[in-house]
């Protein structure tokens, strides 16, 4: 036994097993006690660092103009009169009145045809009055409302669809934090609404997204976590077919998940949308350590059924602590890469607290697991029967399948290497074709009513994705200057030429409407007034019958700042990006001038700024993770070559996934960008275990490469198969997640695990067989001394 330190440590742990177990259980309880204090933060803005300049600027703009994330109810009527019929307008009125009574909705912050004012030209003046005081009783009256609205370009596409088939009821909240209960109240109102044939109601809006996200994520967690736990228990049962083999890994899982979430809660970090994946991911990962330990344990039990449980346990741990530590370290390295490289707080914390969970799983695997095992009477597993083979137990069908695999590898090593090279080439090509894109509504399942509503609203109206542009002038009332207003008008005209920009609004549109109204409503008078005094006096005239706060969303009280809002009908990042960049260029080259300048804001701009960095964050996370894993592996094997070879399977895996993404058009997005760092950290476990075992077999047991490979498959290979099964099934549970971000993430990691497993079991041994690197050769000078090296007690 040449690792006396480890030996002593595990004798110590097994000397006071009950104390170790008690401390372990106590810690779980303490961690778990913090979990109820977790604060949920499902806002879209949570994805952005809170001090990001784009976010701060948008907050400023929202404050100046009193902009909010509203709830939106869309009424669509496909009938011949669209929504301009007595019943639909009555419905708008009905919805408006009902919304006024909803707690936490600002009764004065509701915008609909029943609340908005028309600016009407009269023979000698201008009248600001509601489109209707009471809903029209006859079709003629409804037609009159239709004419009025259709003659008010400002409302077209925003309040009413351009073809008159739809209209919106928009409600602002008093307290955005209570969006969830408001959303539920609105769902009820929509359900109760008296609809006639042809009428449909859709409930959406940023406020609704925020309101529904919380419940959606909760429901998802309640669905995922029990299934994940069950799946893992099943994997363990199939692997070991004993009670302890099933329960012990689950104890480690509970410890990992409880500590990660508990420490997160204690640190005051919010539970974000993607945090939902963390418990599921930890369930899959945490189980790996104990699977390897139990595999070794049952092999030993099968060989030495008469030994004292403590002897078997210590022997097992002395043999397994090094690979288990190594794989835990590499997994943590992957999460660390994610933590360092990500620009998004939710992703950073996902990396950080998963890392903690993995660390705790490692600790429990090396302490509580041996403590429990040393207390239990030896009971062989049916999966590991003592066979005729000398020094190695006979194994079950899984071991046999892997043995066949091993034979194939030994026969066609070069063919395998050629295939691997092909994957590398295809992967590089695929990587170059990957598109960075994201769309926040995609968090929801395509069948979700909210997403259906969002789609319908973006089809019927000008769009619900806003790019706001704040125009700034130095002095109060500078915006009365015709040259400044014309500049804004030109900006709007330019914006409307951009793809997916369906409409723009600003104070300019109101002034044009007033100008038209004051010139007998002649359509050719729909243009800006041409003198400063005229502009000032139009506003005064408006105030004769308008409200003091009527234009607050378009212009500040000093007439110094104005907001120009462009509506996009597509929420994709790639669309927003082209609009943001084009608008930015126009503002820099054509708009800005002494005495006036503009800056971009709004959701579209904010999303542009952080999603832009998703790609770069992804690449950095891959580089950091590879580097960390390489360093950890290199140090452990005391060989740069070994570190590099261990890394190869994960590189091939990542390239393989890139190929899939590039050729099938899967976006590099929030969910998928996380896959690589995690897959590196996890996937490398397979190659670490394989390499470590081969090195042990060859250097210490003095076996030839072929003998070593043959021995590798039924034992370590089998353990890896179950390790893979646990991971793939664990991440695979995310497949049933309805949070699409997590769904994609789970799919990619699961596929990556499969790839890593197969590559580690084929390409890696083939590589070692063909190239015979020095670190596995028997004349390796390093083998006699490694302090970290363990070998089976023989």
């Amino acid at each position: 036994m040449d690792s006396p330190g480890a030996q002593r440590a595990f004798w110590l742990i097994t000397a006071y097993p009950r104390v170790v177990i008690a401390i372990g259980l106590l810690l779980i309880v303490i961690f778990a006690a913090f979990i109820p204090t977790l604060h949920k933060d499902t806002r879209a803005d949570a994805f952005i660092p809170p001090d990001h300049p784009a976010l701060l600027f948008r907050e400023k703009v929202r404050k100046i103009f009193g902009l909010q994330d509203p709830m939106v109810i869309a009424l669509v009527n496909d009938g011949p009169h669209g929504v301009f019929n007595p019943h639909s307008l009555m419905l708008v009125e009905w919805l408006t009145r009902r919304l006024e009574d909803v707690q936490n909705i600002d009764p004065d912050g509701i915008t609909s045809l029943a609340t908005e004012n028309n600016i009407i030209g009269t023979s000698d003046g201008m009248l600001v009055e509601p489109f209707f005081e009471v809903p029209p009783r006859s079709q003629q009256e409804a037609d009159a409302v239709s004419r009025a609205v259709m003659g008010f370009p400002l409302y077209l596409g925003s309040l009413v669809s351009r073809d008159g088939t739809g209209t919106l009821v928009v409600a602002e909240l008093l307290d955005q934090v209570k969006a969830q209960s408001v959303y539920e109240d609105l769902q009820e109102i929509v359900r109760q609404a008296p609809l006639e044939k042809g009428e449909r109601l859709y409930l959406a809006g940023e406020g609704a997204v925020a309101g529904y996200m919380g419940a959606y994520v909760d429901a998802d967690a309640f669905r995922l976590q029990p299934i994940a736990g069950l799946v893992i228990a099943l994997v363990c049962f199939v692997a070991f077919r004993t009670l302890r083999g099933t329960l012990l890994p689950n104890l480690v899982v509970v410890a990992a998940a409880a500590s990660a979430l508990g420490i997160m809660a204690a640190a005051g970090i919010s539970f974000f949308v993607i945090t939902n994946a963390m418990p599921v991911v930890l369930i899959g990962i945490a189980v790996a350590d104990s699977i390897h330990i139990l595999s070794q344990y049952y092999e030993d039990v099968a060989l030495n059924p008469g030994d004292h449980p403590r002897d078997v346990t210590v022997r097992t741990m002395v043999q397994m602590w090094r690979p288990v530590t190594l794989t835990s370290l590499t997994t943590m390295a992957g999460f660390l890469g994610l933590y360092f490289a990500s620009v998004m707080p939710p992703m950073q914390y996902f990396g950080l607290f998963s890392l903690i969970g993995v660390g705790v799983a490692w600790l429990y695997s090396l302490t509580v697991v041996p403590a429990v095992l040393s207390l239990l009477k030896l009971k062989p597993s049916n999966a590991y029967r003592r066979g005729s083979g000398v020094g190695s137990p006979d194994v079950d069908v899984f071991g046999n399948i892997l043995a066949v695999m091993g034979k194939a590898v030994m026969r066609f090593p070069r063919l395998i290497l050629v295939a691997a090279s092909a994957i590398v080439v295809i992967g590089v090509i695929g990587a170059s074709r990957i598109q960075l894109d994201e769309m926040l509504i995609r968090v929801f399942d395509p069948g979700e009513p909210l997403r259906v509503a969002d789609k319908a609203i973006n089809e019927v109206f000008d769009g619900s994705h806003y790019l706001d542009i704040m125009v700034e002038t130095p002095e109060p009332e500078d915006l009365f200057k015709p040259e400044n207003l014309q500049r804004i008008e030109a900006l709007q005209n330019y914006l409307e030429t951009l793809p997916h920009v369906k409409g723009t609004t600003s104070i300019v549109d109101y002034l044009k409407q007033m100008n038209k109204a004051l010139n007998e409503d002649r359509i050719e008078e729909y243009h800006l007034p041409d003198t400063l005094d005229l502009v000032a006096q139009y506003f005064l005239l408006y105030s004769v019958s308008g409200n003091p706060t009527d234009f607050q969303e378009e212009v500040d009280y000093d007439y110094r700042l104005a907001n120009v809002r462009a509506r996009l009908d597509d929420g994709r990042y790639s669309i927003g990006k082209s609009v943001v960049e084009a608008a930015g260029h126009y503002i820099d080259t054509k708009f800005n001038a002494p005495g006036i300048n503009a800056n971009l804001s709004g959701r579209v701009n904010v999303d542009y700024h952080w999603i832009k960095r998703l790609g770069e964050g992804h690449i950095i996370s891959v580089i950091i993770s590879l580097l960390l894993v390489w360093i950890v592996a290199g140090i452990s094997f005391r060989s740069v070559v070994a570190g590099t070879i261990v890394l190869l399977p994960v590189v091939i895996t990542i390239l393989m996934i890139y190929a899939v993404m590039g050729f099938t058009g899967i976006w590099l997005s929030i969910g998928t960008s996380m896959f690589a760092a995690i897959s590196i950290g996890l996937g490398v476990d397979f190659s670490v275990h394989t390499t470590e075992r081969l090195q042990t077999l060859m250097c210490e047991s003095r076996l030839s490469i072929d003998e070593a490979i043959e021995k590798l498959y039924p034992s370590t290979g089998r353990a890896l198969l179950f390790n893979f099964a646990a991971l793939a099934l664990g991440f695979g549970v995310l497949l049933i997640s309805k949070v699409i971000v997590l769904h994609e993430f789970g799919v990619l990691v699961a596929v990556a695990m499969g790839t890593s497993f197969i590559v580690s079991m084929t390409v890696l041994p083939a590589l070692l067989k063909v190239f015979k690197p020095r670190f596995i050769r028997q004349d390796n000078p390093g083998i006699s001394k490694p302090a970290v090296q363990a070998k089976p007690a023989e």
Partner: protein
Amino acid sequence: MNNTLERLLAKVVAGLIFTLPLIVTDIQASDWPTGDDIAQHINARDEGKAVSRKLTMAMIDRSGKKRVRQTRGFRKYYGQEKRSVLFYLSPKNLKGTAFLTYDFPAKDRDDDQWLYLPAMRKVRRISAADRGDYFLGTDFTYEDIKLETKVSIEDYTRKTIGEDEVDGFHCYIVEALPVDEKTTRELGYSRVEQCVDDEIWMVRRSRFWDARGKLLKTILSEDIRQVQGIWTQHRIEVENHKTKHRTIFTFSEVDYATDVRDAVFTRKAIRRGL
């Protein structure tokens, strides 16, 4: 749990605070002038037949940004009919703008309003605003402006509900409730509470609740002193509690003694300017 308890406790305490004075009120009520008495006193007060004055209107939004307009105003009674005119002196881009109003006592006759915008060189007749509409971007409604220091008898039923002090002056608190739903909708108020100085019979503080029963705005009449024997408010401040928008009216050069020529209240006059 804790929260619910606290809220319940708060309700109980609040309930006691509000009901105790009511019980006391009933005992004292006989000593107080009735709401209608007070209203009659207010409306009987001399406002002068005609007045000329400078009025500075300052409107302040929720972020503290301010718009200031200086005007010269005239007002004259023709029996029950009231004519008033407002000439804008500043800012420069509104100078020469004038607003002329004829208020008719008959309830079924809409008031006549004209606006002269110099940039358009045209006197425009403004369709009668609703009584609850806001007046020229201020927090006063047309009804508030029209009543000036008077109160409307027919729109409300009133009741004296207590005593208070405003700016150190003893006042009766009069609660005024609109006579019906329609009036509530028209005025935009579901309840008004006025603190009336029983020395000079002027309202020193009014609070208004909107149609949904939420506190809407507060009007404070300040700097009340006699000008030529007539009690005159020199500063009125309104705050809209919902929008946080505020308006401050400041009166100066108030003159009741000099008669105002009838020709001032004509379309020709507002076109020609001061």
